């Protein structure tokens, strides 16, 4: 049913597809209707009521987000009645809100603040109905802070957790004046089944859900002359950080970011990409080993093997599929490989006491904060990563430092552990780890480059929820002759809802795949829970485009060609999956409860 509804909005005729909301129909003719509970990633809620419009012939106003356009409808989007009603709704929301705008982390990026300014509403119109109990901030989680006093009950977080992630950590509880968003049995955020993915944060219109912030501790470390503070920055940060600093979405700011970090006082500015390349070598070797065990030694091995870079995904599988942890690659995430090497290899090479190193990770992620604090992640003898920062926190730190970011010159990462390839860069986008792995694996197996133009493996790219592809190995090198003629089947899932589909296939014994990439967040890390707000599919696509552009601009585009990776094997790790690797770069997972 195409283009079959015609209605009139503010005197303009507009024709839209059957099922289009009045809100979207208005958008089509450039009429902006304010929204709060609406988010294009999520199902319709229709509960904030700010989007009300007048439908001629109806006694009450109509929520435009929740009402499908119908033939012959006559809609007004601006009238005295609507303005009064919207102003009242804003005033009510503000009366329930803890208006701490001067210190609020989401100030200037808050949908409630923007609309209350537009409607000229403050908290003097109605009396405050803010509850004392709501003002206690839940800071129990390493990753997510929950402040009910800033919550407008739009349920975007609830829908995000249910629809995108299938986790349901957050839910509506109580009724009437006591209605609030809470957790199972009102438990603190660290005691519930939460993957720490932070998607609730990026979908929250206000400061009710934020990441736990560490920048004060990092400033303190920088200011301490006895500390050697290093930072590694993830590939998805450089394509999104610009959004925090006044650039259009999709601007790459890698060089300026490096300069800024150096000027802020980090002793060494390094690249998580280095350990992303290392991940490819370790994980690729692990996969080839499993395939060999299965095909040559006819052993029972867990296939498909699934990537382990995404800590939100790891916690998800630990909670939801604890019997199937064997499918996970034992590789640590690039952040944690970096952390373990920073306080061993880096410290040795640079002649620095590892006890004085403060290792910071700048990540597009909220779950990385939890990951850094996992008790497993102390293989260097210290806490491998001392603090995880989100892209947002990094943006704020740059602002706090007073640097005029746009005027900074470009700089390149320090060495050692600062060299990267295009393959590592694309880790940030969904399908990127798979593409990087295939580039290297195909080369190792056949001695030739992947049979795709410019090494761009298009079938694994894009925003489709689950992507499947296959690649056939022919004319293999002698040591990989067991793979001759084998068609490797791979799949990529992003968003935990899609990961669940992959896992349910595995549980049912019907999974056709050898290797699967899973990222907890839609779009992969570029859409991570630590990225600038808002994130929508259009924004995800722009960040993805920037990621692939960065890849194309790199002189080296395959992980096994990274000279620093070759160097670390020669000098330190010796061989992939060797003893040192096992100790520093691999980890174990734990079974967790489903409740």
């Amino acid at each position, binding site marked *: 049913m195409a283009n079959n509804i015609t209605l009139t909005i503010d005197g303009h005729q507009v024709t839209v597809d059957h099922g289009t909301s009045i809100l979207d129909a208005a958008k089509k003719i450039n009429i902006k209707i304010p929204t709060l509970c609406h988010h294009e990633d999520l199902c*319709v*809620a*229709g*509960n*904030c*009521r*700010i989007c*009300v419009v007048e439908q001629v012939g109806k006694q*009450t*106003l109509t*929520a435009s987000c*929740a*009402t*499908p356009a119908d033939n012959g409808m006559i809609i007004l989007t601006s009238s005295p*009645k609507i303005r*009064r*009603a919207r102003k*009242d*709704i804003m005033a*009510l*929301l503000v*009366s*329930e809100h803890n208006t701490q705008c001067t210190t609020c982390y989401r100030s200037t990026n808050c949908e409630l603040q923007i609309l209350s300014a537009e409607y000229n509403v403050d908290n003097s119109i*109605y*009396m405050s*109905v803010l509850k004392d109990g709501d003002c206690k901030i839940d800071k129990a989680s390493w990753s997510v802070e929950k402040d009910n006093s800033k919550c*407008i*009950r739009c*349920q975007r977080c609830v829908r995000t957790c249910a629809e995108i992630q299938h986790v349901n950590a957050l839910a*509506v509880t*109580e*009724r*009437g*004046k*006591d*209605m609030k968003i809470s957790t199972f049995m009102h438990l603190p955020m660290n005691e519930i089944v939460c993957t720490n993915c932070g998607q609730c944060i990026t979908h929250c219109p206000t400061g009710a859900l934020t990441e736990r912030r560490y920048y004060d501790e990092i400033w303190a470390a920088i200011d301490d002359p006895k500390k050697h503070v290093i930072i590694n920055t993830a590939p998805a940060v450089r394509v999104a950080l610009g959004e925090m600093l006044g650039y259009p979405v999709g601007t790459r700011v890698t060089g300026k970011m490096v300069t800024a970090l150096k000027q802020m006082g980090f002793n060494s500015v390094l690249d998580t990409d280095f350990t992303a390349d290392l991940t490819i070598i370790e994980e690729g070797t692990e996969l080839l080993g499993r395939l060999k065990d299965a095909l040559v030694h006819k052993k029972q091995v867990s296939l498909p093997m699934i990537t382990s870079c995404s800590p939100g995904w790891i916690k998800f599988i630990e909670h939801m599929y604890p019997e199937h942890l064997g499918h996970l690659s034992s590789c640590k995430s690039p952040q944690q490989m970096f952390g373990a090497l920073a306080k061993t290899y880096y410290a040795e090479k640079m002649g620095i006491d590892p006890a004085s190193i403060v290792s910071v990770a700048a990540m597009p992620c909220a779950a990385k904060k939890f990951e850094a604090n996992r008790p497993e992640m102390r293989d260097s003898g210290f806490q491998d990563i001392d603090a995880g920062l989100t892209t947002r926190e990094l943006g704020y730190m740059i602002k706090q430092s007073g640097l005029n970011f746009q005027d900074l010159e470009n700089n390149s990462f320090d060495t050692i552990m600062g060299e990267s390839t295009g393959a590592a860069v694309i880790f940030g986008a969904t399908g990127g780890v798979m593409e990087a792995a295939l580039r290297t694996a195909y080369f190792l197996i056949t001695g030739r480059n992947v049979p795709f133009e410019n090494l761009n493996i298009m079938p694994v790219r894009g925003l489709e929820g689950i992507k499947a592809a296959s690649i056939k190995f022919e004319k293999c090198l002698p040591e990989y002759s067991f793979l001759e003629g084998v068609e490797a089947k791979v799949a990529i899932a992003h968003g935990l809802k899609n990961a669940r589909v992959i896992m349910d296939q595995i549980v049912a014994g019907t999974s056709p795949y050898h290797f699967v990439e899973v990222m907890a967040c839609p779009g992969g890390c570029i859409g991570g829970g630590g990225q600038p707000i808002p994130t929508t599919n259009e924004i995800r696509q722009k960040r993805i485009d920037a990621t692939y552009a960065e890849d194309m601009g790199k002189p080296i585009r395959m992980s096994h060609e990274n000279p620093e990776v070759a160097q670390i094997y020669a000098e330190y790790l010796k061989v992939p999956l060797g003893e040192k690797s096992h100790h520093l770069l691999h980890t174990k997972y734990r079974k967790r409860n489903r409740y």
Partner: protein
Amino acid sequence: MTQKPKKVDIIFSPYSVAPYQILKDTMKRSKEEVIAELVSSGLRGRGGAGFPTGMKWKFATEQKGSVKYVICNADEGEPGTFKDRKLLMSVPRKVISGMAICAWVTGSTEGFIYLRREYKYLVNDLQKEIDIFKQHSKEVGLNFNLQIFLGAGAYVCGEETALIESMEGKRGEPRNKPPYPIQDGFLGKPTVVNNVETFASASMVCRIGATEYKKFGTADQRGSKLFSISGDSPKEGVFELELGMSVEAFANEFGDGDTKAVQVGGVAGFCVPRKDFAKAIIGDGNTTGGSTMIFNSSRSMYRVLHNYLDFYAEESCGQCTPCRIGCQQLLKGIEAVKKGEKPAEYLDQLLKLSESMRLTSKCGLGQSVTNSFSSIVTNFREEMIF
């Protein structure tokens, strides 16, 4: 001289001689004829919204698909109503007959009586009646599986889409409309939701015919209606009265001679002050829920309103902004005016707020707060302030 309210004896009349004879007789007619009879009777939903019952059933028959549901809304939660309880206790057969006729007409094979949890003690007797019904439905070859579903005690679940959500195991929160239950109801299937009294009345329309039924009431409000009468009345209880009487006639009959105001239609309805008794007709504006509370001159209308708002602030489901916060603001607001913390003019702002709540709330709950609020604040303003 005002007319006295006319007592009627349709709904509570004795059963026909043989059990489920109405159903059996009705099933001998054509479905179209039965619907036409209902439409012609002018019967409107007795839950409060007053949608024409015949039309609702007609829409249901027109819905495609083999699975349809019939739900009897027995979540009688409006403060001051207890007529559905009386109905289910004394003439449950009429309710079940109405549901069975609806099922037969619309082609539904599954039905539920959504009984409010507080009426749990009715379950045994009701189930016995359902068992009797099953024997008779087998006799006439009607495949209609009827079950009792116990609610969990939320007022808002009397709203039909919240009721359906709660039956599906979710939070009792009203849905966005459209789609209406008749298109997309329980488990996404076409669903007829009617009040207990509506089903009983529908079966009585089938028994006595539309022509006879239409003789009662006014052009707008046909037939008889059960009223739950409470408050300052020497003869409170459930009464079946002809529709179309004035509040004056009602107060003269049921009041204690000192009636100051009558709350018509429960807390969701209007409060009529003595000066308006003569011109106010009970049932106008579709407030046919049947709850009527009588207040005499010893009552503080501030306390009455406070009680209502307290109830609303608790019983709102909390999902939509105007209802969740608006109810709290109205309550806090009248308290502040009473204590002198806010000037009397603040009441005018609250009146505007209640109008915004009417315009923007998601369901009937938030939309109807303004009815009692504005009628009490406007008519008894001095009681709010002093």
